[in-house]
């Protein structure tokens, strides 16, 4: 598979910023093997910290063929190119009022990759004070679509009515 297609294939599988950071760590761990060789079992476990789908893609990309003195520099360059590609990924920060499970993450990531670009990943944050909905930061813009804001708006609009109820 050609490099760009491989990179696209890898980036498709990355959903979150945390996963991207984990890929970086795994790649660092992988390239450190060039100078301090690990045994085969250890090598197989390099990418195990990643989500299964992503881990499999990484293994298929880098662990199919052993790294020798001859192809070491090539592999190293390939890894650096991948890292450069990962640094160009588009990030959308999403602050939620709940901790999403795998299914929810997959739903959100699919929506983002489908409706924005395939190389967009999500930087997930958690803040229960927003009650529900989300805070969104993308392309330098900040948007508040939280339930808190709607509630505050409703309280402001109906303030007199509420205060009337209190008295």
């Amino acid at each position, binding site marked *: 598979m050609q490099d760009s297609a491989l990179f696209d294939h890898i980036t498709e599988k990355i959903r979150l910023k945390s996963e991207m950071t984990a890929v970086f760590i795994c790649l660092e761990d992988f390239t450190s093997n060039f100078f301090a060789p690990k045994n085969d079992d250890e090598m197989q476990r390099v990418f195990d910290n990643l989500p299964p789908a992503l881990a499999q893609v990484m293994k298929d990309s880098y662990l199919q063929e052993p790294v020798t003195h001859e192809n070491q520099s090539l592999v190293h360059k390939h890894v650096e190119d991948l890292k450069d590609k990962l640094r160009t990924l588009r990030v959308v920060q999403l602050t939620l009022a*709940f901790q999403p499970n795998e299914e929810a993450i997959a739903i959100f990531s699919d929506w983002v990759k489908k409706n*924005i670009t395939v190389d967009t990943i999500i930087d997930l944050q958690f803040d229960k004070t927003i009650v529900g*909905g989300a805070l969104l930061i993308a392309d330098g813009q900040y*948007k508040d679509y*939280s*339930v808190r804001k709607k509630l505050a708006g409703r309280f402001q609009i109906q303030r007199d009515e509420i205060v009337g109820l209190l008295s």
Partner: protein
Amino acid sequence: MIIDPILLIFLALAVTVLAVVLLVMALAYAKNGQKLHQSEELNRHLQEQMSEKPIKLLENAHEKAQELIDEANRHANEILASSKAYEDNSNVALKEKLAQLEKDQEAVFETASAEMKSAYQDLLSQIQEQDMNALKSMTKDIQSDVLADFKEFRGTLEKETINSEKVVKEKIDEEYLQIEKELQDYKKQKYQKIDEDIYKILYRVSEMVLSQGITFDKHKQLVLEALETAKKEQVFK
């Protein structure tokens, strides 16, 4: 040339006159010279006399003065001798006189002193009596003045007290109204604050209830709705 005989006569006359004048002048000169010589002789003679006379006069004067001085000295010594004797006599007499005078004066002073003492005592008694009378009258005056002043003071005090009471009462009323107004304002502020706090509490409670009341699926739905809204608003360029 023939000279006029008149002129000649005239000339002769003139010469004659001149000669006569010269002769007269010569005679006069000679006479004056002789007089001068005589004067000088006389002057010399007089000067000699004068130089001799003062010396003699001085010598005479000196002798006379010396005689006078001797006489005066003699006389002075006599006077001194007599005055010394007089002095001694005078001293003795003076001492006696002084002693006598002293005794007389002592007696006089004693008498005068006794008289003065009695007079002073009498005067003192008089003054004391006068002072007592004056003091009594002053006390009476003071007493009457004080009583009058006291009455006046009392009247003024009563009047002032009544006025002060009135002023204080007005002040108290004014203060009371002020405090009442402040209290009302304070109550109003407090009620407003309470309303605000209750409002905030209500809001917080609503948040908390909603936060726990929203289901997991509802959360997912809300997030997707947020993403859709952002897409519609073209947040993702």
